[in-house]
């Protein structure tokens, strides 16, 4: 893994240190968990929206009316 370092003393391109490689592995695990959590929330929102739309249609609303109501 490579990195760029910009300082007033100059520019350098270097390999990651052992510590930075370990940190990168930790970072990858963390972001994968965050993305998975976000997907769970997004999927639930989509599921809730679908269920709500079905119920609104059962009440007699058209797709356009539901869209106007939900803003999507």
């Amino acid at each position, binding site marked *: *893994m*490579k*990195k*760029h*370092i*910009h*300082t*007033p*003393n100059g*520019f350098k*391109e270097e390999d*990651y240190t052992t510590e930075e490689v370990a*940190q*990168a592995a*930790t*970072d*990858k695990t*963390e*972001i*994968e968990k*965050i*993305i998975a959590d*976000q997907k769970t929330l*997004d999927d639930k929102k989509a599921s809730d929206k679908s269920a709500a739309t079905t119920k609104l249609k059962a009440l007699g609303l058209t797709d356009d009316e539901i869209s106007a109501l939900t803003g*999507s």
Partner: protein
Amino acid sequence: MSEIRVTDIKGEDGSAAVNFSKGINISSGVCTATNFSGGGANLTALNAGNVSSGTLPTTRGGTGLTSLGAAGKALKVNSSANGLEYGDAGGMVKLYEYSSTGGSAVNSFTVNGYFDDSKYMHYRAIVSDVYTAANGNANQPSMRLNVSNSPVTSSSYVWGFDEAYASGHHNRGNGTGGRNSSITQLQGTWACRGNTYELQNFDIFFFNPTTTGLGAKFIKWTGHCHQHGDDGNRYTMASVATGALVTNSALTGFQIYSADGSNFTYKISLYGILK
């Protein structure tokens, strides 16, 4: 009318200048002398290229200066308001600029050591044309802030943004349960890579990064990127975001990295806003 032809005219004592008490008209030719004295009120067609000494003052439309300032400096009124000088113009000053576009791709870059509390209060970093050539990893950038010249990796960051794309919105952030070890997402989960038009751009503003004594260092940013997905769908997104590092310490810089291991090229411009 008559004509006098001589080779030398002198005063009556043979050494003094000749007096022309009623003036003299030279209708053609050149009047040449080693020096001229007296008022120049009626001189016309003066050639500025022949001026070889002295300084034109501001009271006569000049600068009062005898030399040019350094590259990029502006001509401005000095702090005593009694003359002009070359220096930094008000507003934003470019502190650093770099482009790796077309060059080697990296997993991260750090910009450190440019914050100068004696001159600037806030800063602006424009990270543009972030580009990952290879398909595979997504290249969703994260960010850390530097204290004492190193990125802080403790769980001390809060962040959140609202992002518009196509007909939808994403709300992302560290949530309410705790802090993250980074500003984990600058643009969410868009996989901008492969095509040279799938670029990411971020306009990042640093609020008082060198202030000490208060408990957090805030940034705000807007994110702008385009994804041409593997499924053929094209999305363009814009986000409005804020983040902070909970710390009393002054910041010395920042790091942007790709947590999923993507390599990317980028451009960075850093500006300081003068106090």
